[in-house]
């Protein structure tokens, strides 16, 4: 990685060349980077952007860090991702699509690709595969969770990479941040929330708006899913609603698949 000429505590600070790449996604996570109005200049001093199709013309195959957004849904995407992997020293999965498949993976639940294609495109020939997160295809070095990602978190990751500090994520769930922000608990309002099992780091974005968490950041370390289900049921929240949230962004697929199977056993 390029030396920026700067030092931090005497240790040289690198100015990595970074590229932003996108696969099947809404490109919102990249947009969050452009949404950096107030900090964009400092951000650009830390990294050298060599590839960012959404914002610039010109591309380069020489980069240290690849921020990759989106999930993998077509064979050509596999090839492109592998090429990116082979060039990047660090590959960062940016956002829920890249980390878990995101909302795109909801189509996997049908386990019937021809039907899915037929529904949208009629008989036309359209290529599509089962939706996969990046780590299903290549080695991913870092994940930045969220739908969308929080720019503060991306900035922190980039700062840490530049100065060579390790990156750590909260292991605890969203409730911690929610309480610290003094939000009214959604369950007090009679709503559902996945905050107790979802990895924190978003600052309890949704509960802060009195909207329940949908688990876009995936599970916290060792989530108590059994109790989560139990407490939702005790409060009259339907299994379907729990399932809706668990499966929405793909982070909980292990649990949502099990729940779906359980439910279809109950009412086939």
């Amino acid at each position, binding site marked *: 990685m390029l030396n920026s000429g*700067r*030092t*931090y*505590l*005497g240790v040289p*600070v690198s100015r990595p060349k970074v590229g932003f790449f996108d696969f099947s996604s809404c490109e919102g996570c990249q947009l969050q980077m452009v949404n950096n109005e107030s*900090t964009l200049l*400092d*951000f650009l*001093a*830390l990294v050298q952007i060599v590839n960012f199709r959404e914002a610039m013309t010109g591309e380069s195959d020489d980069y240290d860090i690849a921020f990759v957004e989106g999930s993998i849904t077509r064979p050509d995407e596999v090839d492109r991702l592998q090429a990116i992997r082979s060039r990047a020293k660090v590959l960062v999965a940016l956002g829920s699509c890249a980390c878990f498949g995101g909302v795109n993976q909801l189509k996997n639940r049908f386990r019937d690709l021809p039907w899915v294609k037929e529904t949208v495109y009629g008989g036309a020939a359209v290529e599509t595969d089962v939706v996969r997160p990046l780590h299903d295809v290549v080695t991913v070095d870092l994940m930045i969770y969220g739908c969308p990602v929080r720019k503060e978190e991306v*900035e*922190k990751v*980039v*700062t*840490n990479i*530049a*100065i060579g*500090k390790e990156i750590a994520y909260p*292991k*605890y*769930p969203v*409730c*911690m941040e929610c*309480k*610290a*922000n*003094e939000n*009214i*608990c959604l*369950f*007090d*309002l*009679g709503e559902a929330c996945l*905050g*107790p*099992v979802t990895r924190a780091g978003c600052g309890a974005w949704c509960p802060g708006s009195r909207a329940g968490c949908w688990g876009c950041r995936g599970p*916290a*370390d*060792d*989530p*108590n899913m*059994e*109790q*989560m289900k*139990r*407490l939702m049921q005790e409060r009259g929240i339907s299994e379907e609603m729990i399932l809706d949230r668990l499966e929405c962004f793909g982070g909980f697929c292990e649990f949502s698949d099990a729940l779906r199977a359980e439910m279809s056993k109950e009412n086939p």
Partner: protein
Amino acid sequence: MLFKVIAKEELKRLFELLASSHTVVGPVKTGRDRTGLPLYAFDEVERFEDLSLDYAMTKIPAKRFFLPYREDMAVFEMRKDDWNKKVDYNMDRPRIFFGMHPCDINALNRLDKVLMGETYPMPYYIAKRQNTVIIGIDCTPRPYCFCRSMAADTALHGFDMFLTDIGERYFAEILSDTAFNFLRLIKTAEPAGEDHVLYKKAAAARNERFVTQVDTTDLMKILDMEFQSDVWKQWGDKCLSCGTCSNVCPTCYCYSVEATVDLKLTTARKTKMLYSCNLIDFAEVAGAHNFRPERHIRLKYRYYHKHRGFVEAYEESLCVGCGRCGESCLAGITVPEVIASVRSTL
């Protein structure tokens, strides 16, 4: 102790006088819960009308005005290969707390023991504690309150003035000259015999409303004996390890520290955030060794710290019986039930 009685409209006047020159914090309504009952929180208040002095219980305790959830402990100015550490206790003006219940006052008193004690008193806390004038107010016990069991139902110190509603007037106990000077700003009267009667009546009526009890007899010993009891596992199965109990607890003070560098690389911060012993990495050390890897062990630790260790050190428990943790716990883990379950395994 000095006593005065204050007509209700005079209290409003006092509030307005104080609010004109100070930051005043007090209970306010923030919304309604699913059953239509109001929800309360402490917040800055500018108008007396916004204050809900007859509040039931705030979800979040008063602690955050003394121990903020997040607070910078130090800011470093990074210069070329050198740095300068600046410590600010993050309190630059006095604050008046208008309407704190006895449990919250007692919680501060208990926190004082650790945070303002002999060894390494904590200046961040002291700065806020010393510069907050506390006007206490009596409460109507809720079904889940068990402060009486924890000897925290009345506050004997740790406030400047305490108000009891005796109908038309407030009965005021005055503990500090600050409060005494406040009262010189408004009309007050010496309590008459009738006021004493009314006060005692109010206190008796309040006492009758305590329904939940926790038996603390020999609790220290029992906890030691039941260290390996299976009931902990049962509670542990329910626990979400979400930290809510600690966050809503007026006496939980554990914290974690995070070091960050800003994007410009010119400022670094050491930030403290209130933590919870129920969180998975509370006792995790480098190399991923976790001294308390299981939920029930962490949950148990919270009880041991509060009801055993603290008692050993300070002769009272680190729980004031406000019932908040049980009320907020989504898994329904309440102190009275946990302690009863531990006792009954005898």
